[in-house]
């Protein structure tokens, strides 16, 4: 079973790779919309990538109001 920290770290790595930014530029408390400069469509694209990686289904509505990596990691971790 992964720890929450490990899940968070994997999400940061995947987001960095997906949007082509240096992994050390991203922190768990970052607002991913602001930090990555992405819109809601691009965020959905990232979620699809995360679903594939973690082998889970993540409903869009579960993520309403979620904009930081830490909370995103908590929601994903709860489904692992």
């Amino acid at each position, binding site marked *: 079973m992964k720890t929450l920290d490990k899940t968070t770290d994997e999400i940061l790595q995947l987001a960095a790779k997906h949007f082509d930014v240096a992994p050390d530029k991203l922190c768990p408390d970052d607002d991913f*919309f*602001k*930090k990555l*400069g*992405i*819109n*809601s*469509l691009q965020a*959905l*694209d990232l*979620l*699809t990538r995360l679903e594939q990686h973690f082998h889970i*289904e993540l*409903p*869009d*509505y*579960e*993520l*309403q*109001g*979620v*904009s930081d990596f830490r909370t995103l990691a908590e929601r994903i971790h709860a489904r692992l």
Partner: protein
Amino acid sequence: MLDLDKYSSLGEALSAALDRWPDETCLIEADRDRENARLTYRQFKQAALPLASALQRAGLAEGTRVAVLMTNQSKWLIAAYAIFFCGGILVPLDYKLSADEQLKLLAHSRAEFLIIEYPIWRSITKSPAFGSIATRLVLVTEAPAGAELWGAQRWEDFLDVREPQFVPRRREDAACIVYSSGTGGRPKGCVLTHGNYLEQCKALTTWYPFWPGVRYLSILPTNHAIDFMVGFIGPFVCGACVVHLRTLRPEFVREAFVRYRITYVTLVPAIIKNLERGLRDKFDALSSWKRSMLHAMTAVNKRLTRKRANRKLSRMLLPAVHKAFGGELLALITGGAFIEPATLQFFYDLGIPVANGYGLTEACTVLTVNDLKPFRANTVGKPLPGVQLRILNPDPEGIGEVAARSDTIMSKYLDEPEMTAETIVDGWLITGDLGRIDANGHLQLFGRKKNMIVTEEGKNIYPEDIESAFDRVPVKEFCVFAANYLWPAHSMVGEQLVVVLRLNQGQPLTDEIVEKLSECNRRLVNYKRVHGYLVWDRDFPRTASMKIKRGELAEQIRAGARRDSVTPL
């Protein structure tokens, strides 16, 4: 469709619709490749009345304000109908706003009840402003078993099977309070009446009719004026069906077109442009022979539909394209922001008309729509039946500020008599947009007179709403403007924001200041970011209460600086 002249309120018209088409499907709620719900009009009524009964017993009476905060799903429409049935006023709030913004609008609306999806509620409870919430009843949907509810009640536990009492409303009574903008500054709550909606629905369905068997794909948030009208009221009073998707991932949206043989869908310009890019990529990837065939068939279709759309012919000439959209798509509807004519033409040439229009929340939904007789990509269409347009103070080219008069114009802004008086003058809605009416009666837009921008995603951004983001920039004073407001560009595309800086006496513009500016800018979500900065060499004119006189400052800047003196950030 129902004869809407016979009804006084949305509650009355919707009730009649539920009885008129009991066995027609009115709602499908899909989630990826599954279906969560499929309701007939009879089943919709059976689902809504127990909610209406419970709300009534909890104190919902005529004029009580009820906020709804949900993504597009069946319970959104069920809740809205139950509210109208009880004579309440619906306050649709945007689920895409931050929790702080949602709480701010909730407080401004003075909604006594809140109906909300559990994940959004959970997010709101984490906000520092949560303690100030003043609603007396919160109803949550989709709360997991055993979940913390923070004082809310579960939708499913709340229902009451006793018969509710229908509460009639008059046409002039408020039906909805819809926020058009102002999450950071002054909230602008448009008070729209039952009469506004009934007249809008009647006019819109004259040109774009619904009927039993039509399937409308609801993607644009239902709190938005357009989806509320064409994704709820319009289809329902015509016996049509609304399809909701619980996910907006592009791959599932594409599948939905085919699976549900969608008739209409509304998309914001940003999504339509994405769709165009996707199609162009696919066309480019075709073998040269297939690509040549496609281009030839498109050219034939373009020629044969020049005067009028002919969907049968287009589907015959370009079957693969139409099959990808489900084969029964009549039109893409767009609104909320300006869309480039080339994009409209691209789809029209493929035989997929885009019903391009122009409207404001203040005017209920739309004022003008392209009637496709013939299609014109360079206008936003003609005024709908019942809409009068006027161009105020036209210049020699006929371009001036657009004013509109119609039974669809809101009654007022909530709690803002001055703003209302500035916006509705002698019954005319002063839109703040610059336009011209051509010889064929089509409206063409050329920019904005007001200091605001609209993004391609249909978001209204008022510069004053984002100014606080730059509070920590160490300059004497600053002000944010829409670039097209400072330097009128006669254009509705490429709208940008500019921050104007006034430095302290003798203060140089250092790298640190620019870096701070960039840092503050990055903290804004991407669509709210300013494009660049301009250093201004005079103190800003201010009122006696020290507010910046924006209009006067804009005039000074217009006279003293050119647009190309803006330094990009």
